[in-house]
């Protein structure tokens, strides 16, 4: 990317890998990653709750790491791999976390759910949660107005349990 100091009225081209698809788009320097995903790429799975880092509904994975896309500038993501809820699974082949959320009834209105699922996937990859208390603490960046917390916890515990046992089998 070449960005010139004088050129602030024009959109800036960036290359992203969104859900494994190379994607080129032009973004204005003040566009958030969240708005670029939803408004320009029509990936509306990622939700806007507060737009201020206070709810977690906009959580996506950047190079595998969970962040709030409302507090990230799209222009700063050039060359990065972005995974949204649309990239985790499909209706035919759900991601294990999506399947577990359905199995455990881990949502009511569903608005926080894409963020919860991306966050849970990111949390497991980080590898710092071992107990239920630690899962609660490390999922605290995702609020659920419907209060589905106990079922969300159960869904995540199930996936983590599965991970732990499959690791044991592999070892």
């Amino acid at each position, binding site marked *: *990317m070449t*960005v*010139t*100091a*004088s*050129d*602030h*009225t024009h959109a*800036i081209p960036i290359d992203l890998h969104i859900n494994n698809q190379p994607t080129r788009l032009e973004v204005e*320097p*003040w566009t*958030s990653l969240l708005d670029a995903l939803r408004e320009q790429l029509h990936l509306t799975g990622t939700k806007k709750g507060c*737009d*201020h*880092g206070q709810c*977690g509904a906009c*959580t996506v994975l950047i190079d595998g*790491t*969970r*962040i*709030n896309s*409302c*507090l*990230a*500038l799209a*222009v*700063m993501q050039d060359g990065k791999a972005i995974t949204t809820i649309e990239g985790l699974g499909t209706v035919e082949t759900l991601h294990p976390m999506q399947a577990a959320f359905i199995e455990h009834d881990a949502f009511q209105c569903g608005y926080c759910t894409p963020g919860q699922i991306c*966050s849970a996937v*990111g*949390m497991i990859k*980080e590898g*710092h949660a071992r*107990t239920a*208390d*630690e899962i*609660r*603490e*490390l*999922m*605290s*960046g*995702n*609020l659920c107005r419907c209060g589905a917390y106990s079922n969300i916890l159960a869904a995540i515990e199930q996936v983590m349990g599965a991970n732990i046992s499959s690791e044991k089998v592999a070892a």
Partner: protein
Amino acid sequence: MNRYTFTQAVDADGAVREKIGADVRFIAGGTNLIDLMKYNVERPDRVVDITKLPMRDIAEAPHGGLRLGALVTNAVCAYDTRIAERYPLLREAILSGASPQLRNAATTGGNLLQRTRCYYFYDVDTPCNKRQPGSGCPAIGGLNRIHAILGTSEHCIATNPSDMNVAMAALGATVNVRGTSGERAIPILDFHRLPDDKPEVDTNLRGDELITSVDLPDEAFATHYTYLKLRDRASYAFALVSVAAALRMEGGTIAEARIALGGVAHKPWRRPEVEALLKGAKPGLQTFSKVADALLEGSRPQSQNAYKIQLAHRAIIRALTQAADGTPQSVADKAIL
């Protein structure tokens, strides 16, 4: 959000040259700057992306201790094994702040410079001396439940909201910066300032200066420490009062003590002359209570935050007890013992 020119700095000198001018902002994690730009509190002409600069390493510092690059994220810092082993106080303070997503983005330099969460500061439809010098301070006599009890002025009663800064103050970190006229090292206690009659200035960092790294001293207080954070909900909330306590114990006696308070002042609050009272003392409720009295001397309540004085008093005693016992507060286990 206002319209601005976006540029990317390729080296530190270039970044510093770009920074000349009042309305230029560096952006690192963006979690504070973008938030403030969305509220029109920050309206820069130019935003300079510094995330490509080589400031992401954690390395041994030249005079012992560790050096944290300014772009080391809060998550990388907290989960680094050297930090976990040598500076668990810093780790716990960072992990008590914000959320995992925010900590994955937030950087060491950005955290040092995060601005107050005063409601009026955030609301451009109200006056605020910090946002608009000379316009007044509606928090005085207004909504001030979260505001400062120490070091306030008639111009501003805001607090510094950071947890990381409180631990760094207790540890006695040094902030390394680079500007157009060269490099300098600023002791953390001189980095943030009290509001006095210039609440618009949060720190002693000069306009053209870039934070390059933070040095943590060799003395790490890795055994007798705690970070006790009290807040309205048990996670993902700013501190009403927090205490970073660090003790060096010799036998059953305190050889050295550090106590820094968060949520109570415009900067992390430390009083080395009060800490000296603990030198050679044995841990105990009465001693800790006297230290709490002395630390909070001169505290002044506002209309809605008098509770903070007693809360801070109790938190200091509890934190010193936890540190002396070697039973630090756990972030995941919410019981405060």
